């Protein structure tokens, strides 16, 4: 029988990471970019969890790190949404390309 190994998980994590990265790169909507960030983080989470499952020396740490990342993602999402909200108040849009005042 074909056992699902570590590689599959890592592949899935990489896929999620790439999807997230592409989403960040492609989306002009700030909310979309945030979603991409969530995808990247979760891709990393899958890696943590997968390593926790397959690497006995990493059992607890992998899960704890995954939980950390989730909490951090939540916090990050809160802050990022607050920024987006403020941005919207100032610019009446959430298009990230209009945010270029700090351009060098």
């Amino acid at each position, binding site marked *: 029988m074909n056992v699902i190994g570590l590689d599959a998980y890592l592949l899935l994590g990489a896929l999620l990471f790439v999807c997230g*990265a592409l989403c*960040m*790169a492609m989306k002009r909507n700030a909310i979309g970019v945030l979603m991409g960030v969530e995808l990247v983080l979760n891709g990393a989470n899958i890696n943590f969890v997968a390593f926790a499952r397959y690497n006995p020396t990493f059992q607890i740490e992998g899960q704890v790190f995954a939980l950390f990342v989730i909490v951090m993602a939540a916090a990050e999402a809160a802050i990022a949404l607050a920024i987006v909200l403020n941005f919207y108040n100032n610019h009446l849009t959430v298009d*990230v*390309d209009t*945010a*270029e*005042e*700090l351009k*060098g």
Partner: protein
Amino acid sequence: MQLDNPGLLYVAATLLPLASFVLLLLAGALRSVARPYRDQGGIGASLYETMGGDRPQRTGAYVATAAIGLAFLLSLVGFIYFVKDHGFGGHREGAHAVAGGQGGGEAKPAEQEGAPAETRWANHLDFANIALHSGKATVLTLGYYIDSLSAIMFLMVTLIATLIHVFSIGYMSEELTPVVEDHQVHTEHGPLQRRGRFGRFFLYLSLFCFSMLNLVLADNLFQVFISWELVGVCSYLLIGFYYERRSASNAANKAFITNRVGDAGFLIGLLILWTYLGTFNFQDIFRELPQRLADGSLPHWIWVVTGLGIFLGCVGKSAQFPLHVWLPDAMEGPTPVSALIHAATMVAAGVYLVARVYPLFSAEARLVIAYTGAITLFVAATIAIVMTDIKKVLAYSTVSQLGYMMLALGVGGWVAGIFHLLTHAFFKALLFLCSGSVIYGCHHEQEMTKMGGLYPKMKTTALTMMAGVLAIGGIPLFSGWYSKDAILAQALGFFLLHKEHFLLFLLPLVTAGLTAFYMFRMWFMTFTGKPRDEHVYEHAHESPRTMTVPLIILAVCSIMIAWGMPPWQAELSYLGGHEGLLQMSEPTAPLESLHLADRQLTEYVHENHMVSERLAYVVGGLGLLFAALLYYWRVLDPADAKVQFAGVHRFLWHKWYFDELYSAILVRPALTIANWCRVFDTRVIDGLIDNTGKATIKLARWDGIFDNGVVDGLVNVTGRVIYASGARLRNLQTGFIRSYILFLVLAAIAIFFVLSYFLTLAQAGP
């Protein structure tokens, strides 16, 4: 009344003229300060008026005269105390043997009563502590030392100075106007016009009196040196009193510079004494000198050099050959100055100093002194014969008489030399003041060739001057006779003892005749015969009483100052005789230990006194006779004599060509060298400095280029590079999230590859 320190009377007498000087100086300074406010009223203007205002005031003259008059009274009181203390006309102990025991009996040693004479008549206070290298600490002191020499000098100086102050009030009265015209100075607007300088004259006179008295008062050579320079300065200031006249300022410079030559020698002597003995005090020096010479710690030749050095100073100050050239030129000063400074007192300071430090002169040095004096007296007398300027005649006569004094000191006649100094001071001051009176009466005409027949016009002047002429001519019973007689006797004694030095007797003997000749010539030319210049004769007048009274007093002094009891015995003069006042101060005790006092000489002098006296009569009579023949009876024609002895006359008229000689061997080489130095300065030193400057500028320019180009360039390039790279790099900050993500991803991939590379390395490693 009993005084504990009668010597302090003399200190007070010295300080009085100084007080007057300071007072006049302050008044003058206040006047100058207040002058800018004279038109604005208020305190400034009233101060200006109080201090004299525009018109010179007589007040200054009265202050100065009162000061010096008071000084005279103090000296007189001090002198009375001195006589009470020391007795009158006795020898100091230890001198009896030298004088043949003649004066021993009357000598009253008065040291027993009251304070010891040392502290009564001499004291000093420390002036500056100076530590010597040898560890022996010595001090410079200011002090006074009164013996009969200084006591009599004080009397002489203060009396003559007082009379001359009084005389000057009359003589200088032309300086009392707000505007004085000096007809000898020509500017483009006619004769020079200046403010009268009446006060300034008395200011200088006061300073001079203080300096001169301080010189006499001093108990140490250091103090003497200070006063020495001070009288030199006063002389300089007063010769140059009419400094707008080129001749006057030149004469002042000449006097000052010539004296510097002498002072260089003086300084050498001082330094030697300081180095070897560590003291300047006269008494200390005289006490130590014989011991130092005996134990050999002071070599004999050093002794000689010291004496010669100090004598060189005296040569300068007393206008002796070869430094005599300044004195005749010094006649550019006002006549009272000539009388006081350049006849009676300052020029005698050199003689006084020689006498004061007599034990410092070894036998060799004294011989030099004697010959210097002999040459001087002869040279000056010959020049005086042909001079026609009345003051020049007197000037050369002064030089000649100073030569007599030096000669006397040189041949061991200490008393004779000082004696002549004192009598000469009176009759020469008299003669000068008389000449001043004549000049004043003739409206500043000094040439005797324009005078003549003035006797009826100015009888007082003529008669008093005759007294002076008789005195200097050595006519018996006149003061000059006593002193000149003593000198000639001394010279004769010396000649008999040392036959090779016959010139030391011959020259003064011949000169005694010359003296009589030129003095009577002067008097005859001035006062007798037909007037040579009608204009001068018509306007001639007798001088006012302020001028004639001093003349009369001085004339009386010139006649009687040297009298003794009875007057016709020259050796019994109370002043310079064997038991005279001066004998008390003769430095005998140290002299004996230095083998200076020559008993044989003293005996010769006494034995042959009559010989020299008679010779002097003959020679003086001849001089008088010739003068009368030429200028009174006119049996012989002076013009004819001039033609017959044209060469001699020209030689004498040019004053033995001394000025030309000095000009040729000293002045012109000095100017040439100065010129070379100037050329060297402008060419070499200035060139060097200029070129250094130019090179520096050039170098700075190069340095500027380097700085601007290289250093600044480097800094600028750095800045520019950084700025440019910054400008490039800012383009990376696009502001587009996508590009940031792209970098992020690329960075992640790059990290991935790097990590995997290291991982494979790590796995392959072990």
